[in-house]
């Protein structure tokens, strides 16, 4: 296990460098003068341009810039915006909000998706199965902003069950509907993967053995069948956290949540490249850590791959 972990951690290094370099190169390679419009109607003062060029090594090639950026980053310095605001500050205020939202979405996915998947996987082609298949197809087909606006309008404006927007305290009860909106498409995928996995394993020999042992049905399903069927679902759930955080921009916009989606969008529009890179770098880290966690969990769920 220790060696497996070490190997996996070492594998993260080249992936991290590769992805961050790509992001860095892309963001800074965006054509256009980074100082255009920075100083209002006027052209920016030469000292300012010289100062910023110096600070961000804008006159150097992209490799040098990247190396310098990474050097600072490893010391915990994300740099500053053009208006001298600490980027780490932006990250610290916006990330927890997005993380909270994504975790709520993930929980909803796990509970609804897995529940629906297990129920339909056990009774394929029944009424419930068809209901879930149709409703998940519906959710997959609808873009997030449609689900979001419809629910906001229906639950928030027409029926008044929820507040249409989320307050800055980000209370859990406020996040349930936005969480569902964010996770809606994934709920559908989780339900389908769980359904397939359960249905496949339902006929497995070891399930038959468990029944032949005279175990109660809930134990056959809840212990023997579920443990084996969870593996693909866990993989999907784990890797989805990163996707949820990166994809939260629409949901955050609809419900007025101050998260990373909104910050990235603003930074792209205002050409605050350092902010974009900073936020995305953290997102890459989230992806990588979640992937590692999934692989560890995978090994815990299936002992056959433990020492590979």
């Amino acid at each position, binding site marked *: 296990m220790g060696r497996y972990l070490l190997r996996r951690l070492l594998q993260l290094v080249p992936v991290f460098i590769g992805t961050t370099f790509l992001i860095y190169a892309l963001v800074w390679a965006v054509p256009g003068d980074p100082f255009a419009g920075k100083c209002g109607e006027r052209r920016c003062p030469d000292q300012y341009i010289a100062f910023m060029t110096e600070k961000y090594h804008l006159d150097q090639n992209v490799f040098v810039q990247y190396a310098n950026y990474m050097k600072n980053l490893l010391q915990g310095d994300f740099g500053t915006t053009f208006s001298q605001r600490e980027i780490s500050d932006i990250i610290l205020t916006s990330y927890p909000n997005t993380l909270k939202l994504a975790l709520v979405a993930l929980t909803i996915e796990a509970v609804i998706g897995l529940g629906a998947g297990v129920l339909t996987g056990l009774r394929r082609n029944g009424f419930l199965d068809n209901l879930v298949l149709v409703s998940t197809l519906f959710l997959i087909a609808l873009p997030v902003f449609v689900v979001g606006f419809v629910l906001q309008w229906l639950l928030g404006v027409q029926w008044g069950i929820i507040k249409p927007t989320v307050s800055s305290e980000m209370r859990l009860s406020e996040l349930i509907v936005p969480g569902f909106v964010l996770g809606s498409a994934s709920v559908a995928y989780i339900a389908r993967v769980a359904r397939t996995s359960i249905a496949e394993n339902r006929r497995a020999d*070891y399930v038959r053995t468990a029944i032949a042992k*005279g175990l109660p049905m809930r134990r056959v399903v809840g212990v023997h069948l579920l*443990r084996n069927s969870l593996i693909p679902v866990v993989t999907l759930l784990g890797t989805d956290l990163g996707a949820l955080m990166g994809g939260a921009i629409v949901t955050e916009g609809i419900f007025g949540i101050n998260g990373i989606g909104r910050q990235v969008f603003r930074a792209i529009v205002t050409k605050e490249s350092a902010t974009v890179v900073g936020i995305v770098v953290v997102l890459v880290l989230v992806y990588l850590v979640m992937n590692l966690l999934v692989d560890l969990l995978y090994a815990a769920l299936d002992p*056959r791959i433990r020492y590979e």
Partner: protein
Amino acid sequence: MSDILVSEQSAPGTGGSGRPSGRLLEVDDLRVEFRTRDGVAKVINGVTYHVDAGETLAVLGESGSGKSVTAQTIMGILDTPPGFVTGGQVRFHGKDMLRMSNEERRRIRGEGIAMIFQDALSALNPVFTVGFQIAEQFRVRRGMGRAEAKKRAIEMLDQVKIPNAKGRFNNYPHQFSGGMRQRAMIAMSLALDPEVLIADEPTTALDVTVQAQIMDLLAELQRERQMGMILITHDLGVVADVADRIAVMYAGRIVEEADVYDLYAKPAHPYTLGLIDSIPRLDEKGQQLRTIKGLPPNLMNIPPGCPFNPRCPMAQPVCREKLPPLLQVGTGRASACHFAEELVNRV
């Protein structure tokens, strides 16, 4: 119904459906069909056999003859759909299990009737330790605590002669060798001290050397515990040492039932004769192996008359018209062949 089988213990006309007969486990005129998109396959067409405490019944037949499906129906683990029981009874201590509630049937599994499967690697759950899967029986069915269940599970592993049982408790099935896995499977099925053990091709997936060990172990445990054992196999060699009686199945029917000695010495059905003849013999080394010509019938379209007639070297016009019932031939044996008497009486 009862007139189909007249075997050693039951005189003609007795042992009809539903009447308690003091037998441990009886399968009575069982009928099972598989309803698939392509049609209905009649897999079991009136199978009747029984097993008593302390005896071993071998059920012999080719793949697709219905021997495993019969066992699955007894255990209540038939896949439904596509499998449906369309008739007959399975009586345990005289009570028809097919009419019991799910809960009643569940309680018989493991404790009354247990089963060993062919491929222990897929039959054991890959994500739980072998110890867990045995101890689970004691914990769930006997309400034992973790420590005691573990102790009992290790005892079971010891009984099936797994070396270093204590150390093996926490191993996963994939960490066991094939023979060890089958031993663990046996330990698991015997944990609750069942009265009947169904062994469905327990040695087919094993090396020849290991096969004999497993069969010996099974025979020994069966004798010690005075269990009734149903040994399902297609291997005549395995049967001879272990079984008391043999039931030969073909196309979802019993075609012959006899004591081991009688069956080998004088088969009363051409199919049994063919099976015995197809055992490779040392004194015929170098010659072509003998086989039964043709293929087992398509169960969706079983030929009229005797289902074996297209492959039978003795087939006469009557075989294509009339289905021979399983009738007594001499003493203590039965055959479903129009020419059973001739077969037995030939020199």
